[in-house]
């Protein structure tokens, strides 16, 4: 069996420490932080304003939707949908001219 998700990466860190000078390692760290900063504060907001992306991103923002939710219990819209569907199935409108 190969290394599972539990297995350690000690070798990774020790190997790096052995072969890369300290200053270079810290420089790489700051470069990564800069790239994340540039993505978060420059690239992503710029793409957000493009015509193809802007409508849905604006909609998500205005309606306070958590688009990053992993599971249905993390997002309120799913609870609303559940209650709506449940009551639609249990109390479906069936007055006079049939349901709409």
């Amino acid at each position, binding site marked *: 069996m190969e290394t599972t998700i539990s297995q350690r990466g000690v070798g*990774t*860190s020790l190997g790096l420490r052995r072969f890369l000078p300290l200053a270079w390692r810290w420089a*790489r760290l700051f470069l990564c932080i800069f790239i*994340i900063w540039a993505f978060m504060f420059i690239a992503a907001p710029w793409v957000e304003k493009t015509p193809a992306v802007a409508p849905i991103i604006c909609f998500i923002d205005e309606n306070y939707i958590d688009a*990053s939710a992993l599971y249905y219990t993390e997002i309120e819209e*799913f609870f609303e949908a559940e209650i*709506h569907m449940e009551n639609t199935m249990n109390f479906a409108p069936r007055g006079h001219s049939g349901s709409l």
Partner: protein
Amino acid sequence: MEEKKREDQNADVITCEAKSSFSDFWKLEDYWAIWLGFLLLIIGIVIYFPRGPADMQETIANANATLEAESQRAPFKTIAWYQAVDAKTGLKATSSQLGKKIKNFLSKPKKWSANPLNALFINEEAAEAVQAKAMVKYEAARKKGAAALEKAKAAEDAASAAGFNDETLNAEASNVIDAWRAAHTKASKAESKIDAHSYNLIPSLICIMIALAVFFGIGWKIMGNSMTKFMAGFVFIFFMAILAYIAEGNATMKNYGIGYAAWAILFGLIISNTVGTPKWVMPAVQTEYYIKTGLVLLGAEILFGKILLIGVPGIFVAWVVTPTVLISTYIFGQKVVKIPSKTLNMTISADMSVCGVSAAIATAAACRAKKEELTLAVGFSLVFTSIMMIAMPAVIKLVGMPYILGGAWMGGTIDSTGAVAAAGAFLSQRALYVAATIKMIQNVLIGVIAFGVAVYWCARVECVPGQKVRAMEIWHRFPKFVLGFITASVVFSVVYEYLGSDVSHALIDHGAIRGLSKIFRGWFFCLAFVSIGLATNFRELKKYFKGGKPFILYVCGQSFNLMLTLLMAYIMFYLVFPEITARI
């Protein structure tokens, strides 16, 4: 099971000789994951079950009586019908005094726009500014909601005056009421933002860190390791988890659907591949310990009663298409793409066909995938989710596809749950309801998939070809935490059905789950992803991209998923059960 691990010096391979003993109950992390997960679930039940709203039964009875009367009075969902549903929606055990205190205390870093520190604290002055801004939005939304309600009342009265026999007036009333619901939802959300107040999460986060360090540390100690070393490393892991939550809280990133899982892995990877993971942190880099405990908690959120929410069409779209795509993609990956790693093949297939990151976590743990494989699956999910969330509603609008069909299509295919809500709501409220319901039914499938994969791996994959595996051998190899995961799911599903859905919404959905277990489950997964990042080398990841095989697998599988889900949704919602579509 006593695992004798022998590391191959060159290939980083571990072999297992499996056998079970009584001491496994306190020596194995699988069992510790079960004990710790169950402990939190029991605490959640003890806190929230006695704290249902005081007038809960009466409110439910009145609301159901109104719903029954309105369903017989009109051929469409009337204003009173929706208001009765709203009355039931408001019943939450988490709204109790203690529930609110727990929610505030366990709050993770909050949403922010320009200053990342606002994720952790905000002073009175800044809170007042936020409040004032939210109040302007709320006032505008409230006025729109009130105007829409007046129009809806007029349209409903006109339809009622005609004895609900005029089809045109009925259709007009139904449309105007829909518009009111959209405005009402927006106003309700805007209202929830106006009580912004100052906060400082640092003391509570320190308390959570100490509590979790002790929580996991006790098990770690009894398993025969050093608790002191674990707790020292845990401080670093927890700090990284906070950073991941802060990054998730960035308004722009949140809108793209980039969650803590991606940030946690990324931050961990950056540390381990630049300055290197400090040696003293490594005792707390325990991915499986955190992930398995989180999965036991996730089990309680897998409620089987929910699969019948939308009747037979939902089961076909979510429970027939999804396993079909999963199995087909796995076979395609093995026979055609020839992915060398079966665990990578299965993790990507589950991630793509079921529901993204949460399915990838459960499947990877069930088949003991490598940490790099889970990282890769999460990365694919992130990229394709963002693309599909933006592209699918645009395509649906462009081709003029009915929104209910579009909702079912997106619910069955977009990986991430949050992105499904965003894309569905962007089309219409009804599209959101269908998309969310299909995705929810698919979410529940995680339990069955994880169990099936665990059994298949023990019985077929991890054995010598041609050799018959005995039942006891399967038991020895079986990842025991899956039993806790399934038990939590079955127990909560049974209790849910016993209490009835209306009461369960208040005590389980908005009680034991959202009030406690979901919060800790989030922390545990975040700690696991930080650990994965801290223990991963970029070079190890690179070899998986050889020949672009995982990418080909994902694209082909997702294309098949898109076609089959659309076909099935059309057949179910428009050919076989059009009456259900009409009701929605």
